[in-house]
């Protein structure tokens, strides 16, 4: 095992970590805002990947060019999910917590079935495009361009999220999360804030999906493993913390890559879930959690 191989794997892991971080950020945003865990988060990722595949196959659109389009589609989908399902679940008077879990969990099952029906169960991949098959070599370290692009775009999207948090709208989000009943006293429609929160959360996971589609296989269940990692990331980073999601995503990407290198690629997630168990035992609120 040479030093350059270790470095190459580490950088690859960190790049993937940026993708994990962005997926987790969307999950964390929604949870932080309204205490709803979106169990269909991985399926949103999956839908974004299929969107890329279909637009690429049918219209010949390059995956990278599709970025704004798919992000916008996911935004609309997120708003629709909130308006159509979540808002109704929140209005339930009994067993509210359970209802919220079942609604998003049911949605995830529905979306997997929907994908199987519409897109088929075959594994797909996008095999051309601006990024496809290219590599970047720095000395002895060789990295695939799609991964580098994915890491960079996810980092940019993350920066955008942090900028949003600093705007007046970001303050309104924070206020709504602190006291969802009190915002009406200052003329803020919490349904609007919740809708936009879902839109932004879905758009971010959509961006991650677009970038993944350039180098990752696409199947109806591809979202599962990413969703699992996202839950671990959010738990490690601390529920509701953006910066926590970023650092946790990087740590998890690195851990996964190193586990694959040192133990075995097929066991790469062992390290990740060991982190999860450790977090639960040592620091249940996560690195930057408030609870």
């Amino acid at each position, binding site marked *: 095992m040479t030093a350059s191989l270790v470095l190459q794997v580490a950088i690859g892991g960190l790049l993937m970590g940026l993708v994990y971080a962005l997926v987790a950020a969307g999950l964390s945003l929604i949870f932080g805002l309204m205490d709803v865990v979106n169990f269909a988060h991985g399926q949103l990722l999956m839908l974004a990947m299929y969107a890329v595949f279909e637009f690429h196959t049918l219209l010949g659109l390059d995956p990278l060019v599709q970025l704004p389009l798919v992000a916008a589609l996911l935004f609309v989908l997120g708003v629709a999910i909130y308006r159509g399902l979540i808002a109704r679940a929140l209005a339930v008077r009994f067993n509210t917590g359970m209802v919220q879990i079942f609604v998003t969990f049911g949605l995830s099952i529905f979306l997997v079935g929907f994908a199987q029906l519409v897109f088929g169960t075959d594994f797909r991949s996008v095999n051309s495009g601006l990024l496809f098959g290219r590599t970047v070599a720095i000395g002895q370290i060789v990295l695939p361009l799609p991964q580098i692009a994915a890491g960079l775009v996810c980092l940019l999207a993350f920066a955008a999220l942090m900028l949003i948090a600093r705007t*007046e709208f970001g*303050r*309104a989000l*924070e*206020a709504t999360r*602190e*006291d969802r*009943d*009190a*915002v*009406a*006293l*200052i*003329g*803020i*429609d*919490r349904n609007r804030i919740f809708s936009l929160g879902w839109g932004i959360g879905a758009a971010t996971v959509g961006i991650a999906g677009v970038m993944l589609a350039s180098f990752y296989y696409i199947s109806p269940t591809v979202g599962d493993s990413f969703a699992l990692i996202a839950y671990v990331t959010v738990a490690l980073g601390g529920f509701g913390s953006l910066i926590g999601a970023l650092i946790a995503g990087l740590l998890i990407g690195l851990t996964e890559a190193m586990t694959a290198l040192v133990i075995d690629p097929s066991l790469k997630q062992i390290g990740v879930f060991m982190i999860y168990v450790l977090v639960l035992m040592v620091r249940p609120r996560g690195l930057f959690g408030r609870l």
Partner: protein
Amino acid sequence: MPAPILHVRGLTAAYRGLRALHGIDLDVGEGEVVAVVGANGAGKSTLLRAIAGQMSIGGSVQFAGKSLARVPAHQINRLGIGLVPEGRRLFPRLSVEDNLRLGAYARRGPDRFKPLDFVFTLFPRLQERLSQRAETLSGGEQQMLAIGRALMTAPKLLMLDEPSQGIMPRLVDDILAAVRRIRDAGVTILIVEQRLAETLEIADRAYVLQTGRVVMQGSAAEIAGNAEIRRAYLGM
């Protein structure tokens, strides 16, 4: 009484099926300070919450000639009704400045932060604490911030729910003096208070509530001077 800006008839409201207001009739004239007094559990807070659209109601509430039936709470605020609620309900982790500025969030236009100057004139202390988190303020300062935040929504009618609750006695007079200055600036006031004497001093008229009903109304001086009312309905 001047022309009523708030016109309430037969207002009913219930908590978990338990009726808390049994048909309240109440008017607030433009520019008035109207006090609602009564013992604990008389329905004073419920009355304000019902007007602000925070619970479902029966009967009619008209504000500036417009019915508030089935208008959602955030729209009621935008129509010009500000509520400083029981327990203040600030955004504890946001700074004093953010709490104030968010008061203007739902409004558009260049003038929306204009009430800030008035808030700082009323409560210079808030200006000294702009970057502090709301949760680090003392009870009195939090009350000032809650009033300031409500003023940032540029209300025509400001409703205050026991502004003296949980604050140092020394500050109670300051708060009530501020209420008077808010009225002098042209804002109509509907205030709920336990502190009878001090409140009736700044009020034009008052309503006495008992178990969800208006049992007495009149000028503040009449209510203040009537020992029987005080004993019978206010427990003092």
